[in-house]
């Protein structure tokens, strides 16, 4: 190891992204660095150029200059130990600033290929560089987002909605302030200063975390949105788990169902949410339970009986119909609250087939309407089951009556499973909303 290489290693150990624990990797990195000397006023990078490397300031200082419609302005000054030029490499985009030496400056240059190689072997470096990418960002709101502010228990909360993806994001008043400033012109420094002016708090971390959350959720376009995928190391285990997850949980989605649901609700079901209707169905369910349990003896004899009852085939259409009614219960309750049904569909969830309704638009409502939507599926399902139970009563003694009882008993169990809060079904969402403070 040469003396120059040793001094580079000592220097790298003090520079945040390059504090690599593996001595061999650190040695390789040190050898791949190239010395560059600059005189005062030398332009090292020019805004708009394609980047082929990033730079470390060994001594001296450089200024970062950005050109906009008002002219060129100094963004910051970087001194010994600072890294610059990494954004263009990680995002595959042109240089976003010009860098000029403020004095005689010594730099170390790392080429893109060498950076990729080191990143692939050091997760700490990847994390630190991505953090730097976020800190030096000028994030911008994604176009077409809508927002709605709701007051819950006296506190205003804003929910952002991406109508195309059907995605939602909740913001505190502080988060909303930051969101409103994300115009692609303000950097984190500007935003943290404006935040201080508004809330009298030194909170760049809060601003940075708000932006990072919005970028990773796709509501804001930032550096991380343009990440060059070839620069991101991928672990075999991570890729395997991702594939397994997509294999065990997949969905076929039908979009644009909301106009249909809207028509169905207003034409046929708007009466369902009235008090007289609800009182009637509570009474009806009570009768249904009573009839089922009054026929318990005949149900038990069905279970121990012999021979194949061809009427059992009726269980298939009855089950499909109950699924349809259950899902319509969720969808039409969403419409009762004036919200949008984003999609319906079917798929596979770990060990069983699933049928579903995307009720995410209920995030724009408070918790009790959300709970009502979650419980509406099992509730209308119960009405249907008890209707079948009533039929079994009128045709007692027949083979068809036995099928109705088997269906009723099985469906009660299915409802209990749907209400189980441990599994991510209706009961899970209802309990989650019940515990939520908003």
């Amino acid at each position, binding site marked *: 190891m040469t003396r120059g290489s040793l001094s580079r290693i000592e220097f790298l150990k003090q520079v*945040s992204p390059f504090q690599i624990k593996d001595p061999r990797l650190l040695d390789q990195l040190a050898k791949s660095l190239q010395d560059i000397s600059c005189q005062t006023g030398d332009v090292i990078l020019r805004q708009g150029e394609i980047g082929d490397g990033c730079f470390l300031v060994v001594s001296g200082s450089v200024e970062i200059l950005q050109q906009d419609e008002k002219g060129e302005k100094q963004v*910051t000054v*970087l001194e010994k130990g*600072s890294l610059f030029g990494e954004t263009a490499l990680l995002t595959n985009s042109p240089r976003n600033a010009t860098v000029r030496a403020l004095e005689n400056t010594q730099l170390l240059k790392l080429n893109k290929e060498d950076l990729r190689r080191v990143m692939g072997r050091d997760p700490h470096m990847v994390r630190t560089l991505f*953090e730097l990418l976020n*800190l*030096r960002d000028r994030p911008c709101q994604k176009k077409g987002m809508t927002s709605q502010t709701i007051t819950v228990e006296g506190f205003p909360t804003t*929910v952002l909605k991406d109508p195309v993806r*059907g*995605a*939602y*994001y*909740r*913001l*505190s008043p502080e*988060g909303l302030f930051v969101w409103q400033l994300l115009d692609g012109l303000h950097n*984190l*420094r500007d935003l*943290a*200063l404006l935040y*201080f*002016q508004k*809330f*009298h*708090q*030194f*909170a*760049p*971390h*809060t601003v940075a*975390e*708000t932006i990072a*959350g919005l970028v*990773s*959720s796709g509501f804001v376009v930032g550096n991380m949105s343009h990440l060059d995928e070839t620069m991101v190391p991928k672990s075999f285990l991570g890729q395997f788990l991702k594939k397994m997850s997509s294999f065990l949980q997949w969905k076929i989605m039908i979009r644009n169902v909301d106009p249909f649901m809207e028509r169905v609700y207003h034409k046929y079901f708007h009466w369902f949410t009235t008090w007289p209707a609800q009182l009637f169905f509570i009474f009806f369910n009570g009768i249904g339970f009573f009839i089922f349990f009054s026929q318990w003896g005949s149900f038990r004899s069905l279970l121990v009986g012999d021979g194949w009852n061809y009427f059992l085939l009726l269980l298939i259409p009855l*089950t499909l119909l109950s*699924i349809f009614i*259950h*899902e319509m219960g*969720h969808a039409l309750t969403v419409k009762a609250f004036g919200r949008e049904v984003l999609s319906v569909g079917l798929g596979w*969830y770990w060990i*069983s*087939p*699933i*049928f*579903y*309704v*995307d*009720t*995410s638009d209920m*995030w724009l409502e408070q918790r009790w309407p*959300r709970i009502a939507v979650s419980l509406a*599926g099992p509730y209308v399902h119960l009405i249907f089951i008890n209707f079948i139970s009533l039929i079994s009563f009128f045709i007692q003694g027949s083979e068809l009556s036995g099928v109705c009882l088997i269906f009723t008993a099985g469906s009660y169990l*299915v409802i209990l*499973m*749907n209400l189980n809060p441990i599994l*991510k*079904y*209706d009961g899970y*969402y209802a309990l989650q909303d019940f515990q939520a403070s908003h």
Partner: protein
Amino acid sequence: MSYETVGKLIDKWLNDPGFRSALRENPEAVIKKMKINLSEEEWVALKKMDWNMSDEALSQRVNKFFS
């Protein structure tokens, strides 16, 4: 704390990872060490600083049918 002081602190926060983690762990100690004069009101604001964001992405609500 003047506007200029805040600007300098933000610059340091942006460019010094050690300062970022120190400020998160013990903001009072960092401010005292840097000999920055804070008013009574600013000390209160610093002490009640909320490091846990309440802002969050809302997960997709998929009401599935267990069969």
